[in-house]
């Protein structure tokens, strides 16, 4: 078991600059989730960690060892692929024992290791089947099992849950959490699903266009997003971002009446999560209800706030009807620099 | 006198004993003998070798080589020192063999042989080889049907007519072959060798008219007679007369007799066939030339002759061969020996192959009724002149060498252009290992495919004539591309053949794809019973080697006895389609054969491609009320197309160069009109006067056409057109 160190990692394909200097220390036993939209470079970073892509510049250390030029098979990392990449011509048992067999371990040792993991993952009845005879969920577990058997220093997960249906996915999230607790091995997990990131990670790294946007525990990313990108990417439904002006009287959203007290000054982007509103007759904003999405326990209101469209989450049952005009009070405000999108820090001692 | 004789005998014995001791000391001598004999002649040769070993202890190993491959094998192997000690061949190849160094002089007097035999093997005053046997045509007949064989053609025709009918034929011979036409030609006083040859002479026209009468008009000769057909007709008692040689008599299942050919009644001249004198030669670079010469003399001498006469049925050239009793069994040999005395020695004139080609062309036209004897003779003279034109002027190789070197350097520079980019150089360095994986295949291809092709293509800059090579630059190409030798519309012009080749490729590919796809569409229906069985049976044509099936098809297309015509008679009288007498029919015969050979490949490819197409798309179209054709045209076909396209391109390249079918089925008949480029090139290289340079230029042009086609197909495929 070991941690990971990335120092100024760059990846270029000819003219295309995919990773633009990644610096990060991952402690032993951390569950790091790499998240970002497609094309942000998260998969490339993972493949660099695995050794499937060459690193153009910078250093990568696993534990204390610099592994830039170490072959993938010699890094002692295990990877679970999005497609699982099970060897179709080998049985589940052979798949799981493949790496040990390549390492020329004695057969008895391989069998013992496979049996142990198969038991943990409830794969014992499937051991003699071929991957083609398994369901999607079973294949996913076999792919996990194959990674675990190797007892690697680091697990690399490349969107391992994206091919599962919704219920199985939430079940596997719990399984993964349990697995991490039991194995206490460093895990790097790539996903585009922020729910997966929030539920699984001990730390999240948000990437966009090859640049790290923010790294931190899920709660910190949710509560104090470092910029508008992170703010909109983390949390569902997505945060409302409105152009606004701040001065001594408070913040006024462009084209909307009503000032809210805040320390930010000048032109800013104002962020409010849909869950951070209160519908109250003495609310500072007045908005027209366009559409209501009823989700069961809650309802998502799509509102017209002056020239802007915002969404607001309220508890059900609610008396609000479409076409109605309601008054709102935002409770938690996030202010960002309008030019750079960077969060305007709270004055010392203030709470969000 | 007797003492001297006995002394010399004793000396000879001593020498022989010394030789034997010596031979035991060293490795025993083994003489290799190449020949193209078959059946009884081969048996006789083996027996002779056995007897010789008993007498002298020298092992002679006769090695039979297929007749078709014999001369090319001898001419490539022997000059390079890979040949045997001894060769058997006929006198008419001697001059070529001598030039190539295939044979050694014999140096022995010719008095031991019958008249003319020794002289036939002489060249520039030296004799090469030892005469073995005469080969010539005689009039063979079935003695059960014919008691009093005719001595002139009128009587022959009358007798033949009397024995024609009810599936029987009065006379069987290969009426369209020049060799069998030669007796009529001589009987009318025409000649085809010497200084002053004219194929449009009145004598030759008369001979052509007579050949037409005998071969066609009288209705006494079976159509398209091949030697095996004549053999089975004779064996069944359905042929009264046969014009053929001693080889025909070997292995007959019925009594056979022969006399020399009759005189031509119209002229009173004898119908004289050509005479071939076969000899055994000491090969150039033989391992044991001395021993070989001894065996050759023995084989040609009385002892060998006795065996060959007795077992092999040969008309031997040795004077001292055992006399033949006047019986029915020896009748054929005696007739051949008698005929040999008057027959005309096959000329060794270097122009002969050209005359031969032109003559045969005219003969076939006349027999088919495509031309009158006058027209055919005129055409033949024209053709002969073109064929006998001297090779193009020698060119100065220097400018060509310069051009070639420049082109080669240019290509090299073009190949290396990407190397200017340092990134590319770095990448090549980084990916050295990747190249190693392609390396074995690339080297093998380079050595065994690319280099031979380039070497072969380089020959196109030379002209070959009578063993002489002249550098002629692009003359071969210019002659072909400008169609200098014949009008563009002649079957011998490059453009005519190109059009035929394209037509051939298009029709074939169309039929392969439509039949293959039709079957695949049917066979994937789930309600078809025994699907596996049909599929297995329908790929059989692909599994059987195509040279086998091509020959079987050729046989099935025979005009009188072929199964196809029987089939087309629908149970009644067989149809009378002469498949190889017109372009359209001969082309169809080729096409039918190749379609049969080619559709299984397309069927299998389509079956595979169909597996990847979800059926629900077609079902959706069906629900929308689309008919079967509409569904195919607008749903199935667009989905199949991308998968079939590569198979289509590679299939068309194969068809373009499908030599076997053309060569074996129609053989280019009639008049080379069904020849495709590749078979035309082959004919120039090996059949018409060995014009290797001309053939190589053809090959380069074929490659050029295919290359352009390949580029175009790529472009089309890229745009998903077709």
């Amino acid at each position, binding site marked *: 078991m070991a941690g990971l160190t990335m120092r100024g990692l760059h990846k270029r394909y000819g003219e295309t600059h995919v990773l633009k200097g990644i610096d990060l220390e991952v402690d032993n036993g951390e569950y790091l989730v790499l998240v970002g939209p497609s094309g942000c470079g998260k998969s490339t970073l993972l493949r660099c960690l695995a050794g499937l892509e060459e690193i153009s510049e910078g250093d990568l250390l696993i534990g204390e060892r610099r592994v830039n030029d170490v072959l993938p098979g010699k890094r002692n990392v295990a990877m679970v692929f999005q497609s699982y990449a099970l060897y179709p011509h080998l049985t589940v048992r052979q798949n799981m024992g493949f790496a040990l067999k390549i390492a020329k371990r004695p057969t008895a040792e391989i069998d013992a290791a496979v049996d142990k993991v198969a038991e943990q993952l409830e794969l014992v009845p499937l051991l003699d089947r071929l991957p083609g005879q398994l369901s999607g969920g079973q294949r996913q577990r076999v792919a996990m099992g194959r990674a675990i058997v190797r007892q690697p220093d680091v697990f690399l997960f490349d969107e391992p849950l994206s091919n599962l249906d919704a219920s199985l996915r939430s079940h596997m999230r719990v399984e993964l959490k349990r697995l991490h607790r039991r194995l206490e091995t460093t895990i790097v997990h790539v996903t585009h699903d922020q729910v997966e990131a929030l539920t699984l990670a001990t730390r999240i790294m948000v990437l966009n266009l090859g640049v790290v946007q923010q790294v931190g525990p899920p709660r910190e990313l949710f509560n104090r997003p470092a910029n508008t990108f992170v703010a909109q990417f983390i949390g569902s439904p997505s945060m409302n971002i409105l152009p606004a002006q701040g001065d001594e009287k408070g913040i006024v959203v462009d084209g909307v009446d009503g000032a809210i007290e805040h320390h930010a000054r000048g032109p800013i982007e104002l962020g409010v999560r849909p869950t951070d509103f209160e519908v109250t007759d003495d609310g500072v904003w007045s908005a027209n209800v366009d559409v209501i999405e009823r989700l069961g326990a809650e309802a998502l209101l799509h509102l017209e706030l002056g020239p802007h469209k915002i969404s607001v989450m309220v508890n059900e049952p609610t008396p609000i009807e479409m076409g109605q005009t309601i008054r709102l009070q935002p409770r938690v405000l996030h202010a960002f620099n309008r030019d750079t999108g960077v969060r305007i820090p709270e004055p010392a001692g203030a709470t969000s | 006198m007797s003492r001297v004789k006995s002394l010399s005998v004793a000396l000879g014995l001593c020498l022989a004993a010394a030789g034997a001791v010596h031979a035991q000391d060293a490795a025993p001598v083994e003489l290799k003998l190449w020949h193209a004999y078959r059946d009884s002649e081969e048996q006789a040769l083996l027996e002779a070798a056995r007897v010789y070993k008993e007498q002298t202890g020298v092992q002679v190993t006769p090695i039979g080589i297929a007749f078709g491959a014999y001369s090319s094998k001898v001419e490539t192997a022997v000059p390079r020192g890979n040949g045997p000690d001894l060769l058997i061949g006929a006198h008419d190849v001697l001059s070529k063999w001598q030039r190539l160094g295939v044979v050694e002089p014999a140096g022995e007097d010719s008095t031991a042989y019958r008249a003319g035999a020794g002289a036939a093997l002489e060249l520039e005053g030296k004799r090469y080889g030892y005469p073995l046997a005469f080969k010539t045509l005689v009039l063979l007949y079935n003695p059960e049907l014919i008691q009093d064989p005719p001595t002139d053609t009128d009587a022959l025709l009358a007798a033949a007519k009397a024995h024609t009918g009810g599936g029987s034929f009065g006379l069987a011979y290969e009426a369209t072959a020049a060799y069998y036409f030669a007796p009529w030609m001589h009987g009318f006083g025409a000649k085809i060798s010497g200084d002053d040859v004219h194929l449009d002479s009145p004598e030759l026209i008369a001979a052509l008219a007579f050949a037409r009468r005998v071969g066609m008009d009288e209705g006494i000769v079976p159509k398209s007679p091949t030697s095996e057909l004549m053999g089975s007709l004779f064996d069944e008692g359905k042929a009264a007369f046969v014009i053929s040689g001693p080889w025909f008599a070997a292995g007959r299942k019925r009594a056979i007799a022969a006399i020399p050919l009759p005189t031509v009644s119209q002229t009173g001249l004898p119908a004289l066939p050509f005479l071939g004198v076969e000899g055994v030669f000491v090969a150039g670079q033989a391992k044991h030339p001395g021993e070989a010469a001894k065996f050759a003399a023995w084989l040609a001498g009385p002892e060998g002759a006795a065996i060959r006469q007795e077992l092999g049925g040969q008309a031997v050239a040795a004077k001292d061969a055992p006399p033949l009793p006047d019986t029915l069994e020896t009748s054929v040999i005696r007739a051949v020996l008698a005929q040999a005395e008057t027959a005309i020695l096959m000329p060794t004139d270097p122009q002969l192959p050209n005359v031969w080609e032109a003559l045969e062309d005219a003969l076939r036209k006349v027999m088919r009724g495509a031309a009158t004897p006058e027209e055919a003779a005129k055409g033949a003279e024209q053709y002969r002149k073109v064929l006998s034109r001297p090779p193009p002027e020698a060119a100065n190789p220097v400018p060509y060498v310069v051009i070639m070197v420049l082109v080669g350097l240019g290509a090299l520079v073009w190949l290396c252009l990407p190397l200017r980019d340092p990134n590319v150089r770095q990448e*090549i360095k980084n990916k050295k290992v990747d190249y190693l994986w392609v390396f074995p*295949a690339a080297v093998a291809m380079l050595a065994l495919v690319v280099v031979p*092709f380039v070497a072969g293509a380089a020959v196109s800059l030379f002209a070959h004539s009578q063993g002489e090579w002249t550098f002629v630059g692009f003359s071969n190409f210019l002659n072909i591309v400008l169609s200098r030798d014949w009008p563009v519309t002649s079957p011998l012009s490059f453009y005519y053949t190109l059009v035929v080749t394209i037509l051939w490729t298009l029709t074939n590919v169309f039929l392969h794809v439509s039949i293959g796809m039709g079957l695949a569409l049917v066979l994937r229906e789930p309600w078809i019973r025994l699907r596996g069985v049909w599929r297995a049976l329908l790929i059989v044509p692909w599994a059987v080697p195509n*040279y086998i099936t091509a020959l079987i098809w050729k046989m099935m297309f025979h005009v009188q006895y072929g199964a196809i015509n029987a089939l087309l008679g629908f149970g009644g009288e067989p149809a009378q389609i002469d498949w190889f007498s017109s372009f359209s029919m001969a082309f169809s015969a080729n096409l039918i054969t190749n379609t049969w050979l080619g559709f299984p490949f397309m069927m299998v490819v389509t079956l*595979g491609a169909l597996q990847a197409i979800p059926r629900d798309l077609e*079902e959706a179209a069906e629900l929308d009320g689309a008919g079967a054709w509409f569904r195919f045209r607008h749903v199935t076909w667009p989905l199949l197309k991308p*998968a079939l396209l590569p198979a289509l391109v590679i299939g068309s390249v194969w068809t373009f*160069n499908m030599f076997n079918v053309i060569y074996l089925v129609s053989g280019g008949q009639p008049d080379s009109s069904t020849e495709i480029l590749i078979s035309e090139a082959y004919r120039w290289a090996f059949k018409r006067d060995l014009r290797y340079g001309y053939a190589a230029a053809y090959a380069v042009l074929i490659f050029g056409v295919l290359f352009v086609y390949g580029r175009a197909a790529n472009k089309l495929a890229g745009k998903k057109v077709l």
Partner: protein
Amino acid sequence: MRQPSQSRLILTHVGLVVFTALTLYPVLWVFRLALESDAGLGGGLLPIPRDVTLDNFRNVLGTTDSHGWLFGKQLFNSIFVSVLTALMGLVLSATAAYSLSRWDFPGRNRAIGAFLVTQMFPGVVMLIPIYILLDKVGLLDSLLGLALVYSTTSVPFSVWMLKGYFDTIPRALEEAAALDGCTRFQTFFTVILPLAKPALAVVALFSFMTAWNEFILAATLMGDARSYTLPVVLNGYVDEYGADWGAFAAGAIIVSLPVMALFFALQRYFVEGLTAGSVKG
């Protein structure tokens, strides 16, 4: 799809029977000729032998020379050359195809193009240069030399097909193997080749057939009857001097049977092996 009407069902099957009968007709003729004592032309429509004898087979199989069983030696030559051709063809084409399918190195596209271009060379002019070449390196009249020439003639098609098939194998499998500690060679042998079995089978069969059916090169390059392969022998039965159709047909059956057996055995691979590549283009 739904069941077609009764009449369409019957018509389709009748059509299939007729078409299959026509397809097999020439092949049945081969059998007739092989079984008849007096094989030749004539005898009309049906490929039913007039009499049945095994003499033709006995004659073909029983040829001997001073060294012993000649046919056996020639059969051995054919098998040896064909198996060697298939093996060498596989090694040459599989390595090249894998590299061309997987790695993007400078010159790769040109290499693919070059392999296909060699398919367009007309063989007519190559015979004598090949002879001289083999003579120079001492491989003339050797079964190894013959197999080498054959294997290169089948390489372009094999590379093309195998590359198409390799293209369909997901790269993730190789990456998984790399992470599992495989070298390139180990990946190739333990992962890729087992997965490409259908295509390898088809390619091997095609190379085998090239060698098994060829006679022009064999007749030129091989020295004597003892080193001939079966097609050369077979071709000798029907040449310009006359034809022994019975022996030819019997030989044809003997030559064709192994190929047919292989075809049927490998049939299930055919559809997959031939088209997996072309579906992807």
